[in-house]
């Protein structure tokens, strides 16, 4: 039987009740939302599942300024199909999401569950490039924090429930693009990249160049970003930024791919992302 060590299954009816189950930080107690990693890989010390599928907000709502609030209970399929997210940053979200797992997984996996894992991901680099924030519930109150901070510093922190993801509104001329390389289509990424460009007139307001599956969950190529911001969006500037990204992104070797090949892919994918983003910027 799949998780024989699990002896208790709890279904709280409120966030507060869910919080009380995990408040003491017992590693034997785990939160469960959507279709789940826990069903196949919960370690033997996990004895209690707390199913918050019923208490998490699953809605996706945009406001007038174009910012989008995504409930942590929203499935990856709901995110893939939502019209407000489809157009955000000129389509980068469905562009990425169609590669994440497969429909059987996406139909029930939740964004909250996915981000709480903090591992190999195609979703994370895109959310980082979009400056996503996460909402964390603790003991009656909700705090907001940058996703980048959450994943870097706070992921394994004191008990919390991830309740939502927020994407800020973007200026009119803002586009992002995502690319990934894997073996077969349904496979972990060997490397992925997401780039976002906010421009007004000739000025570049924001650049994000993010790589993932390096195998780190994400890394920003800040030198590359700075170079592009000052160099503009010409072919030469893009080439230079990609080259810098290759130099600064740390890649690792594994049995699927070597660090050298991954670094090469950084340059290739960043180039492709930037070129696509530039194309999407033009009216």
């Amino acid at each position, binding site marked *: 039987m799949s*998780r024989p060590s699990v002896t208790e299954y709890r279904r709280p009816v409120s966030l507060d009740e869910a919080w009380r189950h995990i408040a003491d930080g017992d590693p034997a107690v785990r939160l469960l939302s959507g279709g789940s*990693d*826990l069903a196949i890989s919960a370690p033997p010390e996990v004895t209690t599942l707390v199913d918050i599928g019923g208490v998490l907000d699953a809605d996706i709502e945009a406001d007038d300024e174009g910012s989008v609030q995504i409930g942590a209970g929203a499935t990856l*399929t709901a995110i893939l199909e939502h019209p407000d997210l489809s157009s955000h940053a000129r389509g980068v979200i469905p562009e990425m999401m169609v590669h994440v797992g497969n429909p059987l997984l996406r*139909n029930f996996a939740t964004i909250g569950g996915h981000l709480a894992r903090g591992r190999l991901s195609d979703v994370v680099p895109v959310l980082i490039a979009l400056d996503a924030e996460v909402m964390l519930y603790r003991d009656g109150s909700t705090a907001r924090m940058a996703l980048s901070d959450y994943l870097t510093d706070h992921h394994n922190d004191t008990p919390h429930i991830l309740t939502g993801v927020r994407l800020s509104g973007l200026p009119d001329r803002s586009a992002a693009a995502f690319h990934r390389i894997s073996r077969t289509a349904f496979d972990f990424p060997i490397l992925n990249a997401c780039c976002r460009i906010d421009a007004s007139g000739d000025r570049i307001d924001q650049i994000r160049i993010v790589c993932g599956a390096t195998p780190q969950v994400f890394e920003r190529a800040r030198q590359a970003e700075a170079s592009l911001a000052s160099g503009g969006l010409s072919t030469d500037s893009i080439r230079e930024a990609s080259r810098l990204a290759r130099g600064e992104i740390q890649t690792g070797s594994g049995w699927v791919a070597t660090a050298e090949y991954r670094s090469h892919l950084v340059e290739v994918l960043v180039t492709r992302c930037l070129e696509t983003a530039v194309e999407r910027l033009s009216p």
Partner: protein
Amino acid sequence: MKVELVVNGGHRVVRVEPGETLLEALRADGYTSVKNGCANGDCGACAVLVDGRAAASCLLFAAQVEGREIITIEGLTGADQAYHPLQRTMLDAGGVQCGFCIPAMILTAADLLARNPEPTRDEITSYLSGNLCRCTGYAKQIEAIEMAAAILREGGVDG
């Protein structure tokens, strides 16, 4: 624990362990059409419909889907064992070899066609991307889905 599963329109109260997956609960309850190909979320042979959407039943705990509508291939087969168009076209096109992937493949395709009645070949392969088949190379299964989509668009129910 006792969990009420709604399978193929019938309410069944089953005893499950808290850590038992929907795949295990369904097979133990006699729905052996739901296959265990890997129990790891990788092959799709365990797919069922939950509230109309295809799901890998090895990735859901039985308790998670209490009260939700679960459909297995037994629920797709019509009264008097009449074929759903996908069952017929899968045989017509030659998309069935060993048959182990077939119940899941058909259910996933049924989900696709319910929300996209005229899918392109790419849309079909994308929606079926989690359903592995080691026997057919997919060509005739995709053809079967295209044929069934046409039948369903024309209003045929019996194929």
